[in-house]
């Protein structure tokens, strides 16, 4: 086993869970997330010798995941098979009301355009700054701000609409 393979394997062992989680939040689907991470890691391994700052490997993988995901999405978006309910994580929290809110947010997040979703995931899960997100998405910080603001506004509007509908239905009953 070469030193490069050893270093790569050690990196994957240390960071793959966090990266898989990011991939899952980007795609909303575990199988796709595993494919995406595997592709990103393969590309990273091929570019290993060109990565000058080994402290930035994780950011490199994330960036490859973001660009690859957008690329796949552009090809596949019109071929998605609609399902009645999106696959959902098994645990949303103990309190039923909170769990319902999170479930709605997860479902609505899946309906956002891919770059809005990406900006929100990197900001609220990755806890990256706008400049860092811009680097990973390959766009300007202004564009990141726009995507994030539009995504949040859309989420807010849809959540409010759902809450209003629930309230109306509750009133009828």
């Amino acid at each position, binding site marked *: 086993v070469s030193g490069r393979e050893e270093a790569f394997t050690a990196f994957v062992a240390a960071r793959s869970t966090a990266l898989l989680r990011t991939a899952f939040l980007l795609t909303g689907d575990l199988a796709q997330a595993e494919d995406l991470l595997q592709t990103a890691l393969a*590309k990273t391994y091929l570019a290993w010798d060109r990565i000058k700052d080994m402290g930035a490997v994780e950011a490199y993988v994330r960036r490859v995941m973001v660009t690859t995901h957008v690329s796949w999405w552009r*090809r596949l978006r019109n071929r998605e098979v609609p399902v009645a309910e999106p696959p959902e994580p098994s645990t949303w929290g103990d309190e039923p009301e909170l769990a319902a809110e999170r479930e709605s947010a997860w479902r609505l997040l899946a309906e956002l355009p891919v770059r809005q979703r990406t900006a929100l995931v990197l900001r609220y899960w990755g806890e990256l700054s706008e400049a860092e997100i811009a680097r990973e998405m390959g766009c300007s910080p202004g*564009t990141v701000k726009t995507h994030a603001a539009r995504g949040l506004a859309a989420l807010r509007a849809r959540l409010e609409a759902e809450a209003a509908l629930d309230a109306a239905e509750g009133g009828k009953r």
Partner: protein
Amino acid sequence: VTPVDELLEQTLASAAATIGPRSGLADQALDAARRIRSRRRSAAVAGVAVCAVVAVVAVSLGGGASRVKTQPPTASSVLPRPSTTTPLPVVASTMDVLAGLHVLSASATTIYDGSRTVRLHALGPKSEIDTLARIKSGYLVALSTADGSTLARVDSTGKVRVIANTRGDERLGVFNRFAISADETTIAYARWSMTSHAAGTTVRVIDASGRLLQTKRLAGLYWPSAVDASQVWLSSGEGPAVVAPMVWDRRSGRTSLVELGHETVLDARPDLAHGLAALGDAQCALMLVRVEAPNHVTARRCDQPAYAFSPDGSLVMSGDANGDFEVLSTQDLRVVWSAREPMYVSAFSWTADGHCVAVDLQGGGVVDFDPHAARNPFAFRATDNVPDSLTLAVRS
């Protein structure tokens, strides 16, 4: 009610917490990397077998170490100006260049065309331009809309005239890319069944007025990258899988796969005497192939995600996310010009007078530069009033 940003944070954390550690990821990634490398080697071997001399040139250029960067370019590296400034043919759009690096938001209905901005009218919400070409009467655009896809003509005032669409028909999809011939007489686009992938793709060739000229059914999913009177070049991709591009000979009806392990036609010029195509894969590898002999590799370079042939096909401009620009001769693959600018380049277009227009994702705009200028080739930047969401008129 929980504030939306707080709720989002909690939702993402809850969802992420459901994902536990996985074993074997490193081994799987190493296997995938070996497969990619093996495909690249096979393609390189094919190139050597077919054209040893050219392959030697390609190998000597391919390492990257021999590349010379200049900023600004020295006088000796300045390109000779083109002798003519005749109107350029319109061919496939550079929006095909490495799909995924382009920033097109849901509201991207603006065409930036060097000196003017055209906003498209009469489009519903969530519409966006996916592919664009300049034609004599204005523009040809492939649009994604909230309820389908549309191929349309757009005049200089932004008025949209639909040629084909699937809006409201959930059973059909149209690839959001098309190809148009250099003489603007022929347009190719593809549609497929949303309900059955086994039904494959139907490629349609229409004339400028929208009249159907030819159709071809293909197993698998393809989209046209270039078309002329005799051929249609088709790219393909199935998510993470690599599928070879295909050439459809319109006269004989036969199809042949370009089995080089590359999935996307980045730019193609079948209209040239010895037509050229640049093929790329997800790793941004580039191969130049002759259209007349599609499985014969004539050249190969890597790591530059954006490419565009010059109007006469003698040069190919390349650029990448680090702002490294190179102009290569398509005859011998010599680097005839190079420069480095702090830009994230995703697409190019050449203009009639030999300027280049590049989409700069880092600056969020369009840069007009002149590789023929002895000094300050990047002096003029048309970025100020261009919105974030933009696309590039090709070969205007």
